[in-house]
């Protein structure tokens, strides 16, 4: 055996878990993103009194695959005066950044790529923010006014909301006392409370900032279709466009995972330390069985044979997976996989809930105007985030130095923060009214 082969084998032996997890991420994220789009469309359709995609596959279930095929074989159009090199390169940056940052995430106590690096959460945030380079460069390289306006908007938005989002994260990091992702979750487990309850203001600000960072409605100005056509993506088509799209959805998963880790207790189930609620560990199985039963119930009501057959298939699939989940309970040598499975279930459930929140907001709210967005960022969120960091610090200080009850300290400081927030909103309203009055006044050109 040559030394090279040996080295490779050694390497594989040492890193096989990471490699497998990495491959799973790279392979699964496009699929997940595709189905996230389908879920989004279905949800939107449901809220808008219509059906959504129904043609490709039963209930449109194969739609993402059809879309992917379509995008792959679509004609690849590059504007004549585009900067070729950067035009090719930019979507890749977006995609790579989003996928790389997933490497440091823990999707469960066991599922991760990078070993617990001691700046884990910073790594995720820092690398995922690189995705904006892709947006800016792509917008610039397209050589189109719409694209460049979209890129400029997204840059300004990034700079404003990264700051607010970062400061909002600091409140949770102060409570956790570490950057390590695993340790952050473990601290929440030891304290028997998720940080969302200790730093609600921080969570809410992170929610707003993360919507803005992922360019989702109501902050989707860089790609506001009614104003800038498609913003920085205007000139992109086919697979390059798909890369951007994937990057965007992957980014959504990243911010949702960060929020879950920091504020929602990561892979912990609710009340993870309460013994008599241990039956919650069965919830993956319970949910799957419930889903299967529902499908069976609906199968009888389907008008077409194919559809009821499909319902049967889904139900059986659910039961099969539920049985798979049950095996560790029955077959004790497999018991080691249990925390991983349950953790992944709860983690993904929280991530989905967070993303559902995103989608729900998108269907409900109109879009902000750019100056309003900037006002919100600079006049409300950033000052409030700074105040919030101070108040959480103050609470910790009160607890540690003056022996206050932790809850009392946090409640007092949170109320303080909320007071500041109310004042800031009040100030902003006044300023906004004055500004729009000024626009009206200065706009006095004779018709």
């Amino acid at each position, binding site marked *: 055996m040559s030394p090279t082969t040996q080295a490779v084998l050694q*390497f594989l032996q040492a890193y096989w878990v990471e490699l497998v997890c990495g491959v799973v991420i790279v392979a699964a994220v496009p699929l997940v993103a595709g189905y996230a789009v389908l879920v989004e469309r279905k949800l939107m359709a449901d809220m808008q009194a219509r059906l959504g995609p129904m043609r490709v596959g039963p209930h449109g279930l194969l739609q993402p695959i059809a879309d992917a095929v379509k995008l792959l074989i679509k004609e690849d159009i590059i504007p004549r005066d585009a900067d070729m090199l*950067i035009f090719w390169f930019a979507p890749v940056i977006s995609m790579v950044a989003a996928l790389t940052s997933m490497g440091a995430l823990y999707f469960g106590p066991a599922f991760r790529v990078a070993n617990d690096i001691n*700046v884990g959460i910073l*790594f995720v945030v820092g690398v995922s*923010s690189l995705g904006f380079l892709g947006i800016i460069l792509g917008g*610039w390289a397209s050589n189109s006014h719409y694209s460049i306006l979209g890129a400029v908007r997204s840059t300004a938005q990034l*700079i404003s909301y990264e700051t607010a989002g970062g400061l909002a994260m600091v409140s949770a990091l102060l409570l956790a006392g570490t950057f390590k992702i695993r340790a952050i979750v473990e601290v929440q487990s030891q304290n028997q409370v998720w940080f969302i309850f200790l730093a609600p203001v921080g969570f809410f600000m992170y929610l707003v900032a993360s919507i803005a960072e992922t360019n989702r409605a109501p902050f989707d100005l860089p790609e506001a279709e009614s104003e800038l056509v498609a913003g920085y993506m205007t000139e992109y088509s086919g697979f390059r466009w798909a890369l951007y799209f994937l990057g965007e959805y992957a980014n959504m998963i990243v911010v949702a995972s960060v929020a879950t880790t920091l504020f929602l207790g990561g892979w912990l189930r609710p009340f993870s330390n309460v013994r008599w609620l241990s039956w919650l560990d069965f919830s993956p199985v319970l949910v799957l069985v419930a889903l299967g039963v529902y499908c069976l119930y609906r199968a009888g009501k389907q008008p077409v044979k194919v559809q009821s057959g499909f319902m049967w298939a889904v139900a059986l699939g659910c039961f099969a997976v539920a049985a798979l989940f049950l095996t560790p309970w029955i077959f004790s040598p497999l018991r080691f996989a249990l925390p991983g499975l349950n953790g992944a279930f709860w983690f993904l459930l929280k991530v989905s809930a967070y993303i559902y929140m995103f989608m729900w907001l998108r269907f409900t709210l109109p879009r902000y105007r750019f100056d309003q967005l900037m006002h919100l960022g600079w006049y409300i969120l950033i000052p409030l985030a700074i105040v919030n960091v101070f108040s959480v610090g103050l609470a910790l200080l009160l607890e540690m130095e003056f022996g206050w009850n932790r809850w009392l300290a946090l409640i007092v400081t949170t109320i303080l923060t909320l007071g500041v927030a109310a004042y800031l909103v009040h100030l902003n309203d006044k300023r906004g009214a004055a500004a729009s009055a000024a626009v009206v006044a200065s706009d006095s050109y004779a018709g």
Partner: protein
Amino acid sequence: MLDSIVFYFFAGIAVLSAALMVTRRNVMHSAVFLVTTLLSIAGIFLQLRAEFLFVTQIIVYVGGIMVLFIFVIMLVRLDVPLHQMRFRFQRLVALLVAFALGVEVLVILLLARKLPGAGLFVQSTAPVSKLPPNSEELSRTLFSNYLLPFEIASVLLLVAMVGAVVMAKGRKRADES
């Protein structure tokens, strides 16, 4: 061995893209290659187990400063003025500086070879897992030994920020009047 592969990989990319950054005519391309250089240097930091430095490099330089660079390049067509800004002795001065820098590096390397362990290559013999977490180390040093320089730096940045705000406000007022 893996370590050196990683190092040479990143170092090679850093040098190559730095050279490309200097030689490209298109400002935007230069910026992109600068990003690549910075990223590969961040990679070297990581390889040295300086995670915090690595993340800071990415967040501050690539995520912050470079985005601003590109922002400015995008908004302002720098091509035209930059051509005219080139002064006559540019080549000469550049050569001189490069030469001086090269000599400096050479001297340091030679000195280091002569005096092993005297401040340049302090190699920790402890295994990786035993090293103290370097973000804590870094903050401890920063807030104890180097408190004054740190504070001076922050005041400097604050002054720059206030100055920028004042300039922007002043221009706005001038526009209005």
